[in-house]
């Protein structure tokens, strides 16, 4: 009556070659994958990962038109943007050409195609470079800077932002200069160069305040708050976040409220104020609900909430939150975050002294390599995996995984994380 059993995702993916054309099919397959009916309450249920979910070929076939529809919509929007650029070219409206090409790049970024977005931005930049008005060039450089940041190409990103700033200042393009300063701060923050980040954010904040640009000033204050927290200046962090929050609430910016409260939660957690942190995260989720749906933001909040529960020893709540996050990530086509979710699941099992928790790290490594293709994430997973093994008394394996994490952080130039791993390796040898 029920037909054949579903095919496990791990087996389904093994049959799919790594081809660009199949990316939407892979995303669809993953999004419709469900836990095997018999697994939910079985003893393997707590260890359920994406690979162990099941998928019905007939359901995949039925849902294929939805995927085609999404692909067609995306292509239509891209083609439309290109035709707009062409029309602008016909009218000799070069800034319009740049605008249309940048729009196409943003469409690519929205669906996670960063490399393709960079190609659009590069074409836009080539056109912008021929113009007398430098603002389109400033904008193209900024877009390139952020896409490089998303791709983990920090040096290239910094170069684009620097050039953007150098062009904006002589043109008295205050908005461009502020945005470039923010971008440079973001690159420095991502690389753990806190002094540089502080200088760039402060400079951006002065410019934003002079231009009465409340939303950008709020964003820069939030970033300064992040930085202060990372440098353990928690009082300053609290003050920056309070000011950012006032600006955003006054302007009714729901998505920014969600982001600043998410950061407030992290600060409260670092201060050991678990109740306040939990309340901040819950309010952040509520603001995220009011904003335009941003699955990545929702996931970030849920992961922080889960981590808080984990640190507070509320393991049941942590697990429930992680399973909700997993569902949001799978349903919302944000598979990239699954590696982080499974790393936390593994940490949770480690806290319970459960050796079988290693399955989550193995799945996270696979996802970081094959789906997210992020060395940084892979390094973080190995780091957590090493600590997990160490906690279970498996010193040799712990050392091997920590050494792998150190090697990966080295390749990225991540000095701060590398030092943390190094300290753990020393502790292991002591």
């Amino acid at each position, binding site marked *: *009556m*029920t*037909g054949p059993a*579903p095919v496990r995702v*791990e087996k389904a993916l093994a049959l799919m070659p790594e081809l660009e054309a199949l990316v939407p099919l892979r995303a669809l397959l993953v999004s419709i994958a*469900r836990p095997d*009916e*018999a*697994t*939910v*309450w*079985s*003893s*393997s*249920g*707590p*260890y359920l990962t994406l*690979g*162990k979910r099941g998928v019905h070929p*007939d359901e995949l076939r039925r849902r294929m038109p939805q995927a085609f529809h999404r692909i067609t919509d995306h292509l239509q929007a891209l083609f439309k943007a290109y035709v707009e650029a062409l029309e602008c070219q016909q009218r000799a409206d070069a800034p319009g050409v740049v605008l249309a090409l940048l729009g196409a790049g943003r469409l690519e970024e929205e669906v996670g195609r960063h490399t393709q977005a960079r190609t659009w931005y590069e074409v836009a930049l080539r056109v912008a470079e021929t113009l007398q008005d430098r603002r389109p060039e400033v904008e193209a450089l900024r877009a390139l800077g952020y896409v490089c940041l998303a791709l983990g190409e920090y040096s290239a990103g910094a170069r684009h932002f620097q050039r953007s700033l150098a062009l904006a200042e002589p043109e008295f393009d205050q908005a461009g200069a502020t945005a470039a300063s923010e971008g440079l701060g973001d690159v420095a923050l991502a690389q753990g160069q806190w002094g540089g980040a502080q200088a760039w954010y402060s400079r951006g904040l002065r410019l934003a305040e002079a231009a009465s640009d409340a939303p950008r000033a709020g964003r820069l204050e939030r970033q300064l708050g992040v930085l202060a927290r990372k440098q353990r200046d928690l009082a300053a962090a609290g003050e920056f976040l309070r000011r950012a929050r006032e600006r955003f609430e006054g302007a009714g910016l*729901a998505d920014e*409220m969600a982001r600043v409260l998410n950061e407030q939660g992290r600060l409260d957690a670092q201060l050991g104020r678990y109740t306040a942190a*939990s*309340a901040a995260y*819950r*309010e952040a*989720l*509520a*603001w995220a*609900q*009011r904003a335009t749906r941003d699955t990545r933001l929702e996931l970030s909040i849920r992961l922080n909430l889960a981590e808080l529960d984990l640190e507070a020893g509320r393991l*049941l*709540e942590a697990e429930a939150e992680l399973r*909700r996050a997993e569902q949001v990530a799978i349903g919302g086509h944000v598979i990239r975050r699954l590696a982080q979710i499974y790393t936390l699941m593994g940490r949770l099992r480690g806290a319970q002294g459960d050796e*079988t928790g290693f*399955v989550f790290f*193995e*799945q996270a490594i696979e996802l970081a390599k094959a789906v997210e293709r992020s060395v940084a994430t892979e390094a973080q997973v190995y780091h957590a995996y090493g600590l997990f093994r160490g906690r279970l008394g498996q010193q*040799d*394996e712990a050392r*091997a*995984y920590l050494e*792998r994490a150190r090697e990966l952080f080295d390749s990225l130039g991540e000095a701060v994380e590398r030092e943390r791993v190094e300290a753990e390796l020393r502790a292991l040898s002591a």
Partner: protein
Amino acid sequence: MIPPVRMEPSVPSAVPSREALALLRILVVAGEGGSGGGLVQNLRQWADDGRLEIDTAPDLPRAVRQLSGQRWDVVLAVLGEHADDDLSWWVDTLRGATGSPRLIAVAHAPSMGLVLRAEKSGVLDVLSLPLRREELVRALERLRSAASETTVALPLVEPHAVGPYALVGQSPAMLDVYKLLARVAGSPATVLVQGESGTGKEVVARALHMNGPHASGAFVAVNCAAIPENLLESELFGHEKGAFTGAVTRKIGRFEQAGSGTLFLDEIADMSLALQAKILRAVQEREIERVGGGETIPVDVRLIAATNRDLKEAIKQGRFREDLYYRLAVVTIRLPTLGERGDDLVLLTAYYVRLFAERYGKKIQAISDRALELLRAHAWVGNVRELRNVIERAVIVATDETLRADHLPDELRGEETTLADRPQGGLLTLAEAEARHIARVLAHTNGQIGAAAEILGIHRNTLTRKMKEYGL
């Protein structure tokens, strides 16, 4: 004949159920639609009898702030244009709120799908706009009526300790298990434990180990379904350094770890045929080889296997080796479902309440009759594991000495006939009855379409179509 478990009414706890209080505190979140102002005004008028205290919040984020600061009995939320999404967010939000307030969702022309989803999520009621006083009063009365919950003392339980676990129960079905367990524990025979998920197969395996000839050795459990297939072989047999990518160190497998103890292979039916052949060889030859290693290592473990599947059926389908089955099933112990264990549910509830109360530093000595009724009425698909989970969560949220119905998860509370008598006063249409039944079955199977289709006796495609038709 084992006498049924008696539950004596106990002295009511010092802290009365908050529903018993005449005054209900309601937080009204009317949203930003046009209906907001009028609704709040009406509610304030209706609250004039002094039994309602009403406050308002303009939207979900501000409501969250108020909920984190104070305790509320009810949140009355007006759902917006995307009522389904709004409902999910509210259910999610109230999950973490102080004092577990109940939700009354108010919507313009709520759909059947919305009502059924609300029912499953433990929502107190779904009311239509414009709000009518009698409908609200009826919903609140239902909440107040819960004040009549009687507390009953938890019965005494004598668990048989099994390491960190325990065997609890005195039903005839469990007595049969104990007898068989006593007969086979002393022998080194390989045992196959069969039973649905959550019936306690690992606890029985541990009991066999602790009372058997290998008791002085280790008890090592491997969940064959949890471990990715490509890692299971090295997990069981170990590997040499560099045997494959990722083999960063030499690893001692679970067979070796078990030494002269017991190796428990859980969910054995999930193992590939290739690996089954290797297990068979290990059982027959009593020796193994590490992955990537040439050395033969003798093993002296007692093997206990468990499954929730029908292995004979798996043999017929060519998914399980017959020769391995006969090697493993020298003795077979079948575990009863929770439904087959009658009053054991009460004993297990009492056992887990005490266990988790101690773990979480609570003092819970009784359970309310309504909570017990909800537990008895629930279809325990996950058996004892699901019950344990439910009780642990309930103990965490319990605030006084009695475990009450509103400490139980939304899903269980949603099974009460709170929304089920809709539409009020009228008989259901055939479509409504069908939609409701489908929703119940889906709730029973945790939303698993295949299992629901099987219960309903229809093809999964037909069920999917009907779910779409009814907005489920």
